[in-house]
């Protein structure tokens, strides 16, 4: 397994009317080819902003930190995403080596053009295929994602397809350029749970077949447990815990992760009460100094939590937690 | 720092609380203030409007024939100066002009400036001048004047009327026409657009057909027809109201469409449904939920309609279909500018144009600023 993506110290601020807002703060993670990484967080965690940063898709008032580095390892050498400035330079990655699928499939298909036309357009931009070959490849791709009667669907418009089919069509479109990295931003949130199960299976099959890496963004821990190999839990712009899925979910170490899991209604235990995480997430204008979770943490240790930002401590070989409880030198 | 937690709120907290309890109007005002060009436009607008309202005081002479200077026809602007060859004085002054014609000048009237000391006319302030009525009370003080003769800082036209006085009264007249027109258009648009948008369905279809019909009526032929229809016996005031009303009657269509569109989308909002589920009457829903939601848009639309009204009236009067003397407006003032004589020799006739450009631009900046500031809630849906 080769290292596909390396994100180091990614920091992203937005310059808004209300002041400078930090959306992503010193986020680092890496992804291997053929691996699905889950990026989990609630609203305000910065997970979508992080994903968009991988293709530099954020708004023009975004300010990247000086040490931010995103490296994509492609066949002909590593690409430093931060150094790509113009739209032309970025076109290499956007849609080519990196593809993205979104939460609302209705929103990413142009309503007045057929699905087929959009897929062909994408191929024509990123590859040197002829239009005829592009159509062939697109229909094949539609079939591959499980859309029956692909050649008819190719000529249909987005509104003629059901939600699940639209999402599959979007996956087909994203994969037709054979990207090395697929970013999936809440792809199943808007789908019915029975369709969600199908789409998750599809994505796992496709990873096996195409060998690409997926960054899977969601707030649903259950989906991550079923889909991802590794997971990073984000809160208010920072990664608080990361590691293999089994370990993070089986042995949640950060108080936030523990809180999230406790708050989930579990079907296997109908008697247990639902325990919310107390308090509310602070507004991005009032990020706490020190640990971002300190204002709501039930395991609050003391002044060090409000003052110093915890660094990563390994719980096991690749399971890391950013919490003062585990940091060496802190008494439990 | 664990201090007593119930001390007076910090300045930061007070600011936040102010933001949380700010009503729509207050939020819009805050955003508007941050827009420098809009704020500048607003100041200019206020100054111009006040100048128009107080024009009898601000101008030395009556803008009609009654105030003309027979001795200074087509005169160039007289700029007060402080010093000349004869020495300086604290009081600014202008020169006396003397008209004469003779064989030498081919019997054309020629004005000559007399620069002797005794020909100086000193500027006086708060001087007595011609009487005028303001709010029913007679005054005779004007902002400035000269101790003998007359002063024309923007020059005069072919009959000797002071262009400066005429400019300010023109601003006033155009604003008045605009206001009446906009008000009429507004109420019509509110009624038609409102009913259309709130009820939808067949009512909406019928009213939209009506709106489209009115919208497609070509304006110039309509006005020409109306101008022919207006009897000559009407006084200039009656004519003035007539033009204003007509402008309003054909200007409501765009606003009606906007109100309708806005209502059609707003009435499906969930908070409207919530009120209806309590048995709220349509009147309550309109008053409490729908009207406040588009007040900001309406204000923007009204402000932006003003320049259109003013420019329409100008165009009409310019081609002779609108207002006529003695009612004064920009269009009336421009009626005589098309002759070569004026274009070559009497360029000061165009000074009022600058005023109107500034007025229209001020409206546009304010309108744009309002539009940008309006609907402060647009970005609070996540």
């Amino acid at each position, binding site marked *: 397994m080769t290292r596909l993506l390396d994100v180091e110290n990614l920091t992203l601020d937005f310059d808004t009317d209300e002041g400078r807002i930090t959306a992503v703060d010193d986020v680092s993670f890496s992804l291997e080819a053929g691996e699905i990484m889950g990026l989990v967080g*609630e*609203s305000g965690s910065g997970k979508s902003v992080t994903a968009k940063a991988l293709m530099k898709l954020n708004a023009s008032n975004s300010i990247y930190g000086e040490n931010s580095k995103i490296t994509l390892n492609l066949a002909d050498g590593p690409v430093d995403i931060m150094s790509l400035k113009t739209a032309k330079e970025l076109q290499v990655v956007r849609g080519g080596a990196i593809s993205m699928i979104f939460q609302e499939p209705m929103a990413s298909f142009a309503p007045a053009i057929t699905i087929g036309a959009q897929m062909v357009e994408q191929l024509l931009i990123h590859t040197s295929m002829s239009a005829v070959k592009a159509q062939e490849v697109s229909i094949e791709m539609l079939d591959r994602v499980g859309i029956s009667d692909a050649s008819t669907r190719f000529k249909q418009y987005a509104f003629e397809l*059901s939600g*699940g*089919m639209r999402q599959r069509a979007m996956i087909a479109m994203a994969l037709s350029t054979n990207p090395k990295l697929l970013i999936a931003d809440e792809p199943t949130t808007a789908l*019915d*749970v*029975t369709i*969600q*199960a*199908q789409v998750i*299976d599809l994505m796992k099959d496709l990873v096996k077949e195409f060998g690409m890496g997926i960054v899977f963004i969601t*707030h*649903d*821990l*259950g*989906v991550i*447990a*079923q*889909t991802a190999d590794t997971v990073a839990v984000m809160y208010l712009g920072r990664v608080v815990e990361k590691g293999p*899925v*089994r370990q993070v*979910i089986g042995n949640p170490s950060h108080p936030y992760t523990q809180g*999230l*899991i406790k*708050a*989930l*209604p*579990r*079907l*296997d235990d*109908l008697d247990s*009460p*639902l*325990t*919310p995480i107390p308090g*509310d*997430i602070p507004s991005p204008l009032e990020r706490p100094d020190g640990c971002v979770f300190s204002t709501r943490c039930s395991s609050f240790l003391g002044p060090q939590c409000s003052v110093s930002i915890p660094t990563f401590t390994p719980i096991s070989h690749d399971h890391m937690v950013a919490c003062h409880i585990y940091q060496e030198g802190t008494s439990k | 720092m664990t201090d007593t937690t119930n001390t007076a709120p910090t300045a930061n907290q007070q600011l936040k609380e102010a*933001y*949380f*309890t700010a*009503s*729509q109007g207050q939020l819009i005002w805050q955003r508007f203030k941050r827009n420098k060009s809009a704020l500048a436009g607003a100041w200019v607008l206020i100054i111009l409007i006040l100048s128009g309202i107080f024009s009898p005081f601000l101008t030395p002479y009556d803008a009609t024939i009654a105030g003309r200077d027979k001795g200074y026809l087509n005169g160039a602007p007289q700029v007060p100066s402080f010093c000349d060859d004869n020495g300086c004085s604290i009081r600014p002054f202008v020169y006396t002009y003397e008209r004469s014609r003779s064989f030498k000048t081919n019997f054309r009237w020629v004005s000559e400036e007399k620069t002797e000391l005794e020909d100086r006319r000193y500027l006086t302030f708060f001087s007595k001048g011609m009487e005028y009525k303001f709010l029913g009370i007679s005054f005779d003080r004007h902002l400035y004047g000269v101790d003998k003769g007359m002063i024309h800082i923007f020059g005069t036209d072919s009959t000797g009327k002071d262009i400066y006085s005429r400019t300010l009264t023109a601003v006033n007249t155009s604003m008045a026409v605009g206001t009446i027109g906009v008000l009429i258009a507004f109420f019509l648009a509110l009624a038609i657009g409102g009913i259309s948008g709130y009820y939808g369905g067949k009512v909406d279809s019928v009213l939209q057909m009506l709106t489209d019909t009115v919208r497609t009526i070509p304006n110039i032929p309509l006005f020409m027809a109306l101008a022919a229809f207006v009897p000559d016996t009407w006084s200039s005031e009656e004519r003035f109201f007539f033009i204003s009303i007509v402008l309003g009657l054909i200007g409501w269509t765009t606003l009606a469409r906007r109100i309708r569109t806005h209502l059609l989308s707003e009435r499906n*909002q*969930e*908070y409207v449904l*919530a*009120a209806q*589920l*309590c*048995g*709220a009457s349509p009147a*309550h829903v309109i008053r*409490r*939920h729908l009207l*406040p*939601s588009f007040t900001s848009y309406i204000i923007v639309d009204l402000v932006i309609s003003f320049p259109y009204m003013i420019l329409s009236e100008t165009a009409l009067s310019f081609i002779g279909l609108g207002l006529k003397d003695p009612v004064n407006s920009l269009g009336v003032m421009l009626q005589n500018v098309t002759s070569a004589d004026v274009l070559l020799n009497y360029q000061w006739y165009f000074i009022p144009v600058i005023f109107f450009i500034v007025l229209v631009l001020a409206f546009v900046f304010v309108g744009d600023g309002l539009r940008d500031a309006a609907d402060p*809630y647009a970005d*609070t*849906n996540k």
Partner: protein
Amino acid sequence: MKRDTLISATDVSVHYPISGGKLFGPKPVVRAVENVTLSITKGSFFGLVGESGSGKTTLGRAMLKAAPITSGVVNFNDGEVNYSLANLDAKELKDYRTRSQLIFQDPYAALSPRMTVRDIIAEPLEIMKLTSSREETDRRVREIATKCRLNLEHLRRFPHAFSGGQRQRISIARALVSEPKFVVADESVAALDVSIQADVLNLLKEIQQEMGLTFLFISHDLSVVAHICDHVAVMYFGRLVETAPTRELFNNPRHPYTKALLSAIPSLDPDAKNLAQKLEGEIPSPTNPPPGCKFQTRCPHAIDICRRDEPQLETIGEEHDVACHRWEELM
């Protein structure tokens, strides 16, 4: 009607006509809800579950008389009044509105952005003229705000000052200020973060017990329903396919759709083997459904009779009803 039923639906259908279709002949309709029969006990927390197109929202609205009842009977009996919702006159409708309310899904769209929180909560009282003075209104607003754990200081603020969870609590306060007997919560926690969701659900449960309310809780999320509801009804394509007390439904689901729904919920255990079926196929067209059972297009157990006869709801256990021809064989 057994045991203190507050509201019951018998053979209720809600059909919406759509434009288009042939010039002559029957106009096409969307059968949003078709022949649903259920009854809700007073004081219970009744869950209505289904995916998109199931008709659950429409049924909920019909039971509030906010959607037209095309056929069937909805009966409301709270001990003081006895209404048949399909035939209410204007006065009875007004009265019914004081006894039933709706909590919306979207906390951002459900609150008028230009009214203060106090005014939003007070609005039902003012519209329905339930109080005689401003002091009384204020008192009741403060009471319900405290019950919903809203800070009284915040009553002066506008909705834009609040987070999703707080707004939802304002929404709940507004629905409850008129002290209704019957409350429909339409996907009221779907738009909330998981950690806030738990908080709001606990609040609903608390208030229900304190005020003796009856809830109809509409949701697509079975795990949420499992924790908070006493009784659950599952809808598919406008029809009721199974209804049972919560524990019974989750331990012994009988309808293939219920089984599929339960197994589709992603488990937190990455190694949990997916025992039950994955559904293939598409849901039928809403205007031209096939005859027989509407689940046949996706059911792995469909046989001839399923394609011919529409299964009727039959009681198979203690308050447990199923609409499936083959429920016994598939046990």
